[in-house]
């Protein structure tokens, strides 16, 4: 498995495991480039992995490369249904990654920062969207 996909797999597995064990176990989630049907008149979530650029973060014979990115959850709730449910779902999803570290083998890590929560208003395809963004840094040591 590529290191890039190892990061995706780690994130998706964590979401699936934590959501399955939560009060939101039945919420439909759209993962990147997977077929998905938006449920009518019910909350749903879209997951996006936004990649940024990369740079060498350390010196030495096997330096560490740092890749930055943002994990984004779009929590969509039906119009005129209030924002309580969206807030609860969004905060739960954000808490999964809030200041967490994954893949913590020597030199390789996926470090998340603090989530931000922004209500975006009516979105395409219907519903009102809460955008949850969690910046991350993926450090990979050259082997």
């Amino acid at each position, binding site marked *: 498995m590529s290191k890039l996909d190892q990061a995706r797999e780690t994130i998706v597995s964590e979401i699936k495991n934590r959501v399955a064990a939560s009060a939101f176990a039945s919420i439909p989630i759209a993962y990147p480039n997977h077929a998905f049907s938006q449920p009518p008149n019910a909350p749903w979530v879209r997951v*996006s992995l*936004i*990649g*940024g*650029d990369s*740079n*060498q*973060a*350390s010196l030495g014979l096997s330096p560490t490369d*740092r890749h*930055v*990115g*943002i994990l984004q959850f*779009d929590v969509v709730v039906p119009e005129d249904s209030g924002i309580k449910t969206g807030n609860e779902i969004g905060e739960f999803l954000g808490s999964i990654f809030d200041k967490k570290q994954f893949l913590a083998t020597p030199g390789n890590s996926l470090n998340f920062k603090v989530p931000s929560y*922004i209500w*975006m208003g009516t*979105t*395409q395809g219907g519903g009102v969207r809460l*955008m949850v*963004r969690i*910046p991350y*840094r993926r450090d990979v040591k050259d082997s």
Partner: protein
Amino acid sequence: MFRSNASSFAKQLENCYQKKIEEAATRVFKTARFVHKSLIDKTPVWEGVTVRNYIMTIGTPYAGVLPEIGGVPTGRTNQMPLGTEPRRAENAAAALESGSVLTKVNAFSKIYITNNSDSVSGLEHGELPGDGYTPRSPNGMFGITLEEALSRLNSKAL
């Protein structure tokens, strides 16, 4: 016999201080340039007005909205990769030109990069183009550029 080298020591301290000031100014200069270009490069272009309006100023934010540079048809930009849109080059160049206000002399002033175009918020949040089209840049520009700049600053790449 005791010989004082206080004046030489003071002079070296002064030189060191000046060198650090210059290094810091260079980093500020490079960071502002990096952020300006990164925002422009990540922004999808249709008419060009959003890209045209990334304006860098010193001391006071730019308050206006500039018209796009037309001249060539917009083309079917929804079917084009980011970066190949017909109106990108001229509008991006005009926006980058505003960065010429920045010099290493004024690098410690407040530097603003503003964008007052109507569509910049929608592009940042993956809401545009409008209904019926697939947004070409759900990735946005500002959030990811901030992370890139912070990472580069931490690793001294900037």
